[in-house]
């Protein structure tokens, strides 16, 4: 993998190299402690009772039988919440326990603590809840129309946002339109929700070990519900088995702490997979009508769009998801005029919130599908139509915000195009016995097709993604650097969820400070907030904080060395593992220079301020942007509708690859999730009830579904990024989906000359062949 070969002049373990993860050996040996592995002496188990109905009034809750079971220590409901009854990331609209109304299947109604999970299960079964069923609001259009009674005091519309720019009456010579739909995707991290709450003796505080994305935001909401000062609520990051947005919202934190504090004993909770599907937010299903006006040469003149996002029962981050979708509706393209109308509404469906891509996924599927329609209408190919519209640094979004970042959209497209296509034909290279490898055909071991039944298609997707939080949110990050005796100890509250921040933090420290020995303190709330591990922001923000803290520490080091040698700090530098002066006369190993120093610097790193959108969707609401192109090669069996993705090629705008191997990992992993949305992943709800809350029927891509990825990293360091590096986690998930669908459309057009619109994802076999 040439992209990860380290140039000889990069010191091992520093920025630009790919050192092994510090937690790697523990993870491969099974000794790394995930939050579900953590226990404490004398701890009890907790479990949650959930609503079986999408909308119902709670008439009564009878806990008596549960209390009487042997081994049950506590049974709690909304009445037992001492502080705030509701929590929420943006609006405080979601109850800790439902008290008067349940608004979605799975909403927590009560919780129990007992000596064993089996006892908990029996206790939950023994709780009798009398419900009066209410009509469920399941149609977002009804919520928008305002005819239905509000299912929540905050109303049925979570956010409505327009974006109007330029001339709303502009028209183009060429007009293409379509209505696109996306089903509900689940983050489906493998490390199921789990936590351990240890109450302080006396009950004045609690320590919570939990797998989460943002310790401090959890603490803020948790403390409010517990009626405690934030200082009394301490969070420690338990090992996180993936997140992808599903751990941004509170799930079991409050329940676990309530039980522990009530009993004065540690309590652990762990969700099953079925419960996990109910216990966290999902990607918003969306319906997007969009119309592109263009010149006959294929240049976009105007877009019009109406986007409807089903936020489910509680607001979560729907407002911000919608903002992403409407503000990036034009994609990574120039677009002088726009009329976009977006709604995020409340229904009695499962609550939706953050998932990798966060609103850009939905918008991208719609506008990339449109770009192919535009290409066809103008007689251009998929690459050319995109090149003609490709954004550059300085171009503006339809919000009026100029893209000040490096914006190498044209490079992304051209370098993706330059990557070789697969060298094997449909079915693979024919073997000596004349047979194809069935595993390379759609259907694989199912032997559904012979090579002659399969057509190969190629499709494109290009995307833009905002980095960091938007609309005035100051999502800063904090880091602390201590330096002594050649050892740097770094502390941060940055949630490591698998993405590898723990690696690059050490790489940054080694690079800035010239030390090899870097240690990481525990990740907890004993330091300021790092913001959320989401929005592709931690490399920039926590990386920026670590960088700034190390630079501050280095400045103290230079002051000390300078004082000892009659030099100013500005005359000193780090060269490898030595302090040197710029004249080349002085060289002191950092290990020696720090032998008697105790340096301790903590820095908060903030990004420039952004603003709220005005009522016309105008304003510099985003912080920064990254770009990527994807090309998909997909083999399709048009008669049966089965597909096999053969290759994904991509060139991604990464700014600077701090750890190239880790960047590749993010790219490949993100593409897998994009592939899942394209062809297999959807939470199916019927009348508000989930039908496939398990891994038998919610299908994740396996080794046999995911193709090889060929990738080029486009490294044009961004002058705004503290290390030149942009976040890389989300872009791979965004335009891979439309690229795969476009490839399927291409195959179908070849097969019968007509093709299929395939305007909905995930594409099902019946969509392809019937």
């Amino acid at each position: 993998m040439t992209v990860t070969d380290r140039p000889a002049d990069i010191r091992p373990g520093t920025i630009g190299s790919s050192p092994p993860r510090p937690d790697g050996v523990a993870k491969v040996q099974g000794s790394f402690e995930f939050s579900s592995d953590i226990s404490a002496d004398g701890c009890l188990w907790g479990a949650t009772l959930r609503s079986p109905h999408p909308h119902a009034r709670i008439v009564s809750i009878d806990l008596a039988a549960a209390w009487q079971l042997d081994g049950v220590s506590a049974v709690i409901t909304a009445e037992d919440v001492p502080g705030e009854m509701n929590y929420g990331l943006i609006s405080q609209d979601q109850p800790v326990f439902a008290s008067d109304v349940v608004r979605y299947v799975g909403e927590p109604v009560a919780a129990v603590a007992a000596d064993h999970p089996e006892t908990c299960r029996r206790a939950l079964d023994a709780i009798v809840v009398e419900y009066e069923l209410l009509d469920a609001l399941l149609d977002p259009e009804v919520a928008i129309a305002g005819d239905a009674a509000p299912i929540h005091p905050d109303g049925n519309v979570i956010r409505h946002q327009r974006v109007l720019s330029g001339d709303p009456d502009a028209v183009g010579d060429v007009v293409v339109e379509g209505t696109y739909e996306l089903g509900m995707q689940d983050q489906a991290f493998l490390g199921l929700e789990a936590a351990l709450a240890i109450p302080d003796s006396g009950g004045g505080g609690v320590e919570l070990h939990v797998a989460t994305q943002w310790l401090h935001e959890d603490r803020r909401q948790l403390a409010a519900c517990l009626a405690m000062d934030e200082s009394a609520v301490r969070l420690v990051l338990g090992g996180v088995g993936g997140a992808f947005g599903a751990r941004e919202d509170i799930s079991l934190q409050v329940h676990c702490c309530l039980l522990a504090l009530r009993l004065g004993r540690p309590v652990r909770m762990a969700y099953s997979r079925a419960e996990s599907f109910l216990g966290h937010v999902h990607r918003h299903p969306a319906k997007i009508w969009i119309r592109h006006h263009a010149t006959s040469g294929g240049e976009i003149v105007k877009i019009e769009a109406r986007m409807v996002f089903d936020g489910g029962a509680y607001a979560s981050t729907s407002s911000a998801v919608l903002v992403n979708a409407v503000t990036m509706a034009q994609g990574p393209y120039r677009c002088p005029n726009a009329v976009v109308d977006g709604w995020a509404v409340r229904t009695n469906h499962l609550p939706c919130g953050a998932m990798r891509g966060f609103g850009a996924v939905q918008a991208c599927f719609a506008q990339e599908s449109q770009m192919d329609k535009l290409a066809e209408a103008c007689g251009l190919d998929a690459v050319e139509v995109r090149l003609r519209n490709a954004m550059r640094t300085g171009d503006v979004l339809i919000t009026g915000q100029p893209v000040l970042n490096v914006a190498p959209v044209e490079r992304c497209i051209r370098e993706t195009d330059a990557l070789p296509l697969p060298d094997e034909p449909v079915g693979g290279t024919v073997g000596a016995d004349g047979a194809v490898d069935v595993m390379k055909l759609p259907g694989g071991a199912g032997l559904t097709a012979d090579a002659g039944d399969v057509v190969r298609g190629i499709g494109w997707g290009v995307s833009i993604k905002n980095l960091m939080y938007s609309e005035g949110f100051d999502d800063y990050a904090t880091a602390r650097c201590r330096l002594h005796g050649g050892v740097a100890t770094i502390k941060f509250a940055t949630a490591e969820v698998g993405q590898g921040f723990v690696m690059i933090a050490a790489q940054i420290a080694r690079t800035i400070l010239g030390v090899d020995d870097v240690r990481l303190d525990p990740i907890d709330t004993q330091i300021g907030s790092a913001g959320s591990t989401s929005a592709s922001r931690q490399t920039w923000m926590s990386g920026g904080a670590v960088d700034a803290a190390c630079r501050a520490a280095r400045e103290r080091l230079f002051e000390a060395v300078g004082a000892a040698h009659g030099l100013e700090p500005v005359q000193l530098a780090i060269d490898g593992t030595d302090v040197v002066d710029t004249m080349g006369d002085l060289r002191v190993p950092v290990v020696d220079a720090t032998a008697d120093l105790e340096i301790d610097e903590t820095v908060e790193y903030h990004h420039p301020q952004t603003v709220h959108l005005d009522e016309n969707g105008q304003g510099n609401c985003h912080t920064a942007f990254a770009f990527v192109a994807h090309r998909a090669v997909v083999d399709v069996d048009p008669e049966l509708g089965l597909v096999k993705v053969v290759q994904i090629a991509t060139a991604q705008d990464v700014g600077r690859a701090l750890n190239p191997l880790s960047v590749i990992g993010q790219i490949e992993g993100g593409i897998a999730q994009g592939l899942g949305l394209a062809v297999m992943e959807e939470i199916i709800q019927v009348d508000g009830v989930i039908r496939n809350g398990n891994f038998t029927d919610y299908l994740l891509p396996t080794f046999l579904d995911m193709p090889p990825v060929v990738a080029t990293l486009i490294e044009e360091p961004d002058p705004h990024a503290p290390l030149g590096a942009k976040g890389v986690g989300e872009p791979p998930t965004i335009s891979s989906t439309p690229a795969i669908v476009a490839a399927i459309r291409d195959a179908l057009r070849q097969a019968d000359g007509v093709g299929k619109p395939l305007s909905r994802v995930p594409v099902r076999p019946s969509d392809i062949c019937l």
Partner: protein
Amino acid sequence: MPVFAPTTVESATGLLADHPDAMLLAGGTDAMVEINDGRLRPDDVVIALDAVAELRSWRHDPVTSTLVIGAGVTYTELLRDPPAALAPALAQASRTVGSPQIRNAGTLGGNLGTCSPAGDGLPVLAALDATVTLTSATGTRVLPVMDFMVGVKRTALEPGELINEITVPVVDGWQGYAKVGVRNAMVIAVASACLVVDRRARAVSLALGSVGPTILRCPEAEAALGRAIDWEMMSADVGAFARFGELAGAASRPITDHRSTAEYRRHAVGVLATRLARRALTRSEAAA
């Protein structure tokens, strides 16, 4: 301790006679899913069968030209020669079951005992006209597999009986299996089919999975293709393949559920039947 691990069929059936409510456990790949989910709990005792060597063995009887497979033989074992060479369609079906972990534990007897219409091995057993030997403390009986599979997850197993072995004819001819799933591994069939073209008997068998309450045979389709085959050349014309598919689709009785629609399932088994016929036979020119 209420988990027994008998080592012979005789002791297993004896235990079953003493404990009529016992749960029989082989690979566990179906039962443990139910137990983990809380939907099933052993009421009384569990009789674990994996120490019964007779159930874990197979034998080829060249005189009767049959392959006799113990109920406890795993899919991994069925994937390997010699059983795979004797019943290639069964090996093909076995390869599609779950994952290597599932194939190492899951058994053909378990597949029959669960009797899901989506059971991967079941269309093969049906198309091969396999028989199922059921043994209890009081005796043994043999049922054609189509009589054993009664409905959705319902079999003709009587209390006190266990599935002992499955007898599969070794066919002179062609046999093949195909299964449609939404992803390329670890997937429940939304439609499946097994075709057997028995050259010696000059007979066609087609069994369909996931398109009815249990496995379906397609007598009309079988007869039509059987008439259209030139048995000397083992060939038929393209029209015969297409008709075969249409008749297979017509014989199906699929439902719509969260996995797929009736319309797609019907369409899919038709396509599978056509393609299997195309593989089984060489293509001749249409009759003038």
